[in-house]
């Protein structure tokens, strides 16, 4: 079972138990656990055993602080707690809880530290430890980075075990029966004589005793839930259209608002004319907000109509108005002054390039919107002594502190109610919508203001995925890849994102070269350089972040070299792979796809590999070049995650990631003209259609030491596997997204 040291360091415990293992200098005070946020508004006879379990007259509630974005996070977190608590999932409620430092994300630091995830050296672990403290200090209660599972895997099971043992101690105190003779099951403590005491009945006693924290986690062989398909908490409600998402949420007495902001992101508003809008039906107020105007009406539609009836004098964009300027800025970034990181420099690349015939290529990846089906919204009510925010967010702690700062209230008087999210992909790692809702609500004290973005406003004001360019050079020798030199230029997505939270990025931005520099290939001469382009359009994390562009660059250029060497694409990747568990995922997709078998004329197979977020993922795509264009026939995916919590949800997440990756690679880009995003709705930002969707076969491997998340890793290999397959079928090498600039898709 999990190493004790890991559990001690990564687990939040309660009461006065200090967590051992404060090894990094100056970190002691942040090694102490935070307060239990559940103690503040507990009913008189309720008990909060650890910050994750609340038991009161209503029943047992499991606190699941990672937001459910459709990925099943609530159900997964609940299962981890319930596994050790000996309670069934249909006996519990889930509640995202309130923002608290207790819920900081420990796994997120792994992505931020400049070490390969295959590197478990003391150095790497130490840095992760310090980053861990940094995350805690910042109170990063963040859902993202494919971290919900690795972050919660021990912590939440531990929380369940502590609650279970504390309830047993309470039962022992109440009955005089020694704890050793008590068992638990089905939400009850079982007495030796067969009688049962419910957790609810024991809660008042449990609340008064010291929690039992000296607990052992169960061996996987004893698991009832983990590793088996579970009925997700939200499935029935979602399938029947009854689940209230953030945008559906209502608060009594609320008014409806929307905003019009300068469509040139971050540009000024020099003036506006609202005379036509003021007299329109249902319009209540028109108020300036940062960078634009808010319209308040008696329903959302009327607010939209009034907003459209206004005219504005917008300022210029603080970035190049046309795309040529963006590409030029990237192109000019490949110079020594702009090197952000050269994390890899194996062998002697310069000498190798001077020796052989150089194969060179340039790759491009465009801006991409997050465009979740549910546009962003927030309900905010501000009074003199408290503020309430109801919204779907991945960053409740940031929201809380921003609202506190804007209203002058103390953070504990700002109540964040996290709601279900209808897709995010990183979109809700931003909280501009909340800030604007606060600006409006402050001027309507006591009235809840529901601010909803129109689809157009949502897409125009999305902070898209980074734009990026890569330049590769390489040589081959004796049928093998000999030298591989790749430079990647992009603006810093993390600096852009953290800047909006008034934070600066300490050290280099690891995302500039994520998914490329740390690939476990043993190419004799192998160099990876990240160049930091100047800030262009404001950008934000998009499902798989840096790896979303870099996985495409790194793998496709590798494919070009393998083809030039005359080697087999899969065999050469396997030959070059030094990391055993990564080799196994390549071997798995080879076996799944029956690699090497004849697909018939006009068809082709492509394979791609990318390790991101610590997950080695390989994908094989099969395509046919039909008279009407490229048809994607089948996709095979293998991913190494250490342990699969729920095979069905795992399968869903992988398939969703593949479809997301392929769909955007096929059809999508955000382009700026006159400083404004030209794609404002799904007609111009086209998803893969049901009839285009290939069969996708998924295999989760569990050879790794560490448990990993699967939300993002299937995305980076999807585009390169498709591009490599198109090359195999047609001989056409596509080096820029979207691919539909070069081929039609059936």
């Amino acid at each position: 079972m999990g190493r004790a040291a890991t559990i001690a360091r990564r687990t939040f415990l309660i009461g006065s138990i200090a967590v051992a293992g404060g090894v990094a200098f100056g970190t002691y005070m942040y090694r102490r656990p935070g307060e239990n946020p559940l103690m503040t508004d507990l009913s008189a006879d309720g008990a909060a055993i650890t910050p994750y379990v609340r038991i009161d007259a209503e029943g047992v509630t499991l606190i699941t602080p990672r937001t459910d974005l459709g990925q099943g996070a609530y159900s997964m977190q609940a299962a981890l707690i319930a596994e050790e608590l000996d309670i069934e999932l249909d006996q519990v409620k889930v509640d995202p809880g309130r923002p608290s430092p207790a819920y900081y994300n420990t796994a997120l630091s792994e992505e931020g530290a400049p070490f390969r995830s295959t590197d478990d050296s003391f150095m790497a672990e130490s840095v992760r430890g310090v980053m861990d403290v940094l995350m805690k200090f910042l109170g990063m209660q963040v859902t993202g980075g494919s971290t919900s599972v690795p972050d919660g895997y021990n912590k939440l099971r531990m929380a369940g075990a502590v609650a279970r043992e504390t309830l047993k101690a309470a039962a022992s105190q109440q009955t005089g029966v020694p704890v050793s003779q008590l068992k638990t099951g089905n939400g009850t403590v079982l007495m030796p004589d067969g009688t049962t005491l419910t957790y609810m009945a024991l809660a008042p006693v449990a609340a008064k005793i010291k929690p039992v924290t000296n607990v052992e986690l169960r061996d996987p062989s004893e698991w009832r839930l983990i590793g088996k398909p579970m009925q997700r908490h939200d499935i029935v409600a979602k399938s029947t259209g009854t689940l209230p998402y953030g945008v559906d949420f209502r608060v009594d007495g609320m008014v409806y608002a929307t905003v019009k902001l300068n469509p040139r992101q971050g540009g000024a508003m020099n003036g506006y004319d609202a005379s036509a809008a003021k007299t329109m039906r249902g319009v209540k107020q028109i108020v300036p907000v940062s960078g634009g105007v808010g319209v308040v009406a008696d329903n959302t539609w009327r607010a939209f109509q009034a907003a459209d009836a206004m005219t504005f004098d917008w300022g210029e964009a603080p970035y190049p108005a046309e795309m040529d300027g963006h590409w030029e800025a990237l192109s000019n970034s490949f110079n020594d002054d702009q090197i952000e990181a050269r994390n890899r420099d194996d062998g002697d690349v310069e000498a190798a390039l001077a020796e052989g015939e150089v194969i060179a290529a340039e790759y491009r990846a465009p801006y991409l919107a997050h465009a979740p089906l549910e546009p962003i919204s927030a309900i905010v009510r501000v009074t003199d002594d408290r503020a309430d925010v109801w919204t779907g967010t991945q960053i409740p702690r940031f929201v809380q502190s921003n609202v506190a700062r804007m209203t002058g209230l103390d953070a504990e008087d700002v109540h964040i109610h996290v709601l279900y999210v209808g897709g995010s992909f990183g979109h809700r790692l931003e909280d501009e919508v909340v800030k604007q809702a606060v600006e409006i609500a402050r001027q309507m004290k006591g009235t809840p203001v529901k601010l909803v973005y129109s689809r157009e406003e949502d897409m125009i004001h999305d902070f898209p995925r980074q734009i990026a360019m890569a330049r590769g050079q390489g040589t081959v020798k004796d049928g093998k890849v000999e030298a591989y030199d790749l430079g990647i230029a992009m603006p810093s997505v993390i600096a852009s994102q953290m800047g909006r939270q008034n934070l600066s990025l300490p050290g280099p931005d690891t995302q500039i070269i994520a998914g490329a520099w740390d690939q476990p290939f043993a190419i004799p001469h192998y160099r990876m350089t990240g160049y930091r382009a100047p800030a262009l359009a404001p950008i934000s994390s998009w499902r798989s972040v840096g790896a979303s562009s870099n996985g495409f660059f790194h793998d496709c250029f590798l494919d070009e070299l393998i083809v030039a060497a005359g080697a087999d694409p899969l065999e050469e990747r396997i030959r070059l792979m030094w990391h055993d568990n990564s080799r196994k995922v390549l071997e798995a997709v080879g076996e799944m796809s029956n690699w090497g078998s004849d697909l018939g004329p006009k068809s082709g197979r492509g394979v791609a590999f990318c390790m991101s977020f610590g997950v080695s993922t390989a994908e094989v795509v099969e395509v046919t070049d039909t008279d009407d264009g490229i048809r994607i026939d089948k996709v095979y995916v293998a991913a190494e995650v250490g342990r699969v919590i729920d095979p069905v949800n795992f399968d869903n997440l992988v398939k969703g990631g593949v479809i997301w990756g392929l769909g955007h690679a096929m059809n999508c880009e955000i382009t700026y003209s006159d400083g404004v995003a030209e794609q404002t709705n799904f007609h111009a930002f086209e998803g893969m259609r049901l009839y285009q969707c290939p069969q996708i076969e998924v295999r989760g491997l569990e050879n790794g030491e560490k448990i990993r998340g699967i939300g993002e890793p299937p995305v980076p290999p999807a585009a390169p596997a498709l591009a490599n397959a198109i090359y195999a079928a047609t001989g056409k090498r596509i080096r820029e997204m979207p691919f539909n600039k070069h081929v039609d898709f059936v």
Partner: protein
Amino acid sequence: MKTSALAAIWLAAFGSVALAAEPVGTDRVLNEFAEGSVSFEEGLANWQLFYDVASHPRCSNCHVGADNRPMWSGPSYGRTRPHGMNINAGESRIGAETLLCSTCHTDVEGMASASNDRPHAAPRVSMTWQLAPVEAEWFGKSSAYVCEQLKDPERNGNRTIKEVAAHLDHDLILHWAWEPGGNREPAPHSLQATMDALMKWAAAGTPCPTE
């Protein structure tokens, strides 16, 4: 060149007829013209009037070829491009094997309740939204090509020209072309004028322009 000059002469003489106040109207008539009562030139000019309609985006956007992809063209779209949202109507031409056109272009009881003025709302009529048959591919096709196609029973649904004209009167999607709603430019002339032009063209012996 010669054809358009003739059309201009014809329009100068009869143009007022083509600009009916109500482009669809309520009491359309299938006017018959005796065979030979319309001259060859007048027949050609009447064909040209019909071609003005057939080649207009309101019609040609759905008269597309075998790729089964409706088009978006005309002033309201700014530029010519395939229908957005990655739409393909399939060989069924109604989206049966892909995504039914009627998923968004839902049927309405009567045109009065269609609300086609809503921005972003897909246009709706009181029949199933669909592409024209693939044989009637008009998008980007010349006047001569469309002319030959329309009088070829193999490619016009085995109809006489009179039946084609009657079909114009009965097919409600076609009525929508003159009342498209929103900022969409309606088809030119009027439904009555278009039917009359077809009947006169038939009376003239269905002359076609040469390329």
